[in-house]
């Protein structure tokens, strides 16, 4: 569902998601993600410069609640430091339709 890989030396937080990210799955993972981000914020004085990457390689569906999580997370770091990678075309089109592909820096 959600695996987090924090590379301190690179100031990089990579989040690997898997499966179908519907409303329920999004709500379940949100506290974990929040917790991780809060810890990072507390422990890392350079949090402002952190890069957060959501890897959606193994994701085949995203609910609007997951898109909201992406937006909320993106707001916690300077513009351009949040990105989403490895979307499959169906997920990519979903972000396009939401009009968020540029805001969320989707590759």
């Amino acid at each position: 569902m959600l695996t987090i890989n924090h590379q301190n030396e690179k100031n990089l937080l990579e989040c690997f998601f898997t499966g179908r990210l519907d409303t329920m799955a999004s709500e379940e993972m949100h506290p974990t993600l929040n917790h991780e981000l809060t810890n990072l914020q507390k422990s890392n004085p350079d949090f402002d410069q952190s890069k957060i990457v959501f890897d959606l390689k193994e994701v085949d569906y995203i609910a609007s609640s997951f898109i909201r999580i992406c937006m909320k997370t993106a707001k916690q770091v300077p513009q351009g430091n949040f990105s989403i990678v490895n979307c499959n075309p169906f997920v990519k089109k979903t972000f396009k339709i939401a009009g968020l592909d540029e805001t969320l820096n989707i590759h």
Partner: protein
Amino acid sequence: MTDSIIDQADKIMEKAMLAAAEFQQFNQEQTDRIVEAVYKAGFNARVGLAKMASEETGLGNWKDKVIKNAVATQLVYNSIKNEKTVGVIATDQLSGITEIAQPLGPIFAVTPVTNPTSTVLYKILICLKTRNPVIISAHRSAVKCCTETVRICYEAALDAGAPEDCIQIITAGSRDLTHTMMSHPKLALILATGGTGLVKAAYSSGNPAIGVGPGNVPVFIDESADLPFAIANIIASKTFDSGTICASEQSIIVEESIEEAIRLEFERQHCYFLSPTEVKLVEKIAVNAETMSMSPFIVGQSVSVIAEKAGIKVPDGTKILMAKLDGVGRDYPLSIEVLAPILAFYAARDYHSAINICIDLNYLGGIGHSAGIYANNEERILEFSTLMNAGRILVNTPTSQGAVGGLFNNLLPALTLGCGTGGKNITTENISARHLINVQRVCRRKPNQNWFAMDFQKYLDESIDESILSKEYFKNN
């Protein structure tokens, strides 16, 4: 707005209104006689008009413009000649509904410089078929050829008994007059083919509009495709009238695994891959990087002219300049629509990445228009089609000639291609006569027996829920 422009618009509209009043009394036979006469006159003038258009606009070449004129007359005529557009057009005994076609009224038809005479011929035919007077607005760089087209059609129409002033043309090239005409209270519809600004102005005028916007056509070549066939078709399409059709291929997207084979095949078929330095030089003359719009100076020009302007040398006989790009958007100017023999080329690491590039290109100014795929894999064709936001997905088909319909498929032949709401248009269809009538529905009494068998007191009782009322509604069905 000056009084003279308003007066001018009023005079044109007054003539058009009188023509509309007379035209609406015509029956199907009279109407069809006029359309046939105009078709024949337009078709017979196809070569002269093509030469005039090519000479006056300096875009494309006259031979391909002959084909465009033939499509706009012969194919369009054959697609509408048997269509009922007057009076009762359909009767359904079962539903009790009879459909009656009524004309819309005066139509203001804006035409582009890239396809001037063909668009004028096509719009005149579909307007006359539906008994609508048409006012042609010619592009300022195509006034002479459009005026001649209108003259030929109008004379043929009058000879066949059409009302006076059923075809008019505005040749002044005045932006103010065009805008005054578009917002004229007596105008019935704007049929706008042109750039984004024009289409937006049409939709903002307060009058109904069928406006179609620009494209940015991505073409995916799948590993299952017949490569020599695919590339021959792409070249025939992209070079047609020097790439001036808005449905022409803009980018070729392939997987890295077949990049080399495709590159060799393009080269074998006389296309030239630009070096990174040459890409930059072509970018500079082809696209205004600030506004991210194509330069009008390269539209419809040949490879040799473009190469000369860019200051590069290419082999004699080069058909298309290929520009390999690493991305889509502002940093890659050639990723936008360029109506000239220049093709962006992308090699993606895998299938999904390739389709993602197609999505990015599709959304970069070409939403709703057209997309192409070469493949012999049904699953991929369907997946690609689902993922593109395009009114037309052309499969194993040259997109220029494929999108206009009637040549390579059974789409309605048209030079105005709807792009749906993504392109801020009302439809994704190819526009034809059927879009230019008001359909009245005469509804005979056919009571809904289920509804009238219900006890209506039960609808007033809040405690009775949908499942009970639904069961009762469908009882004995």
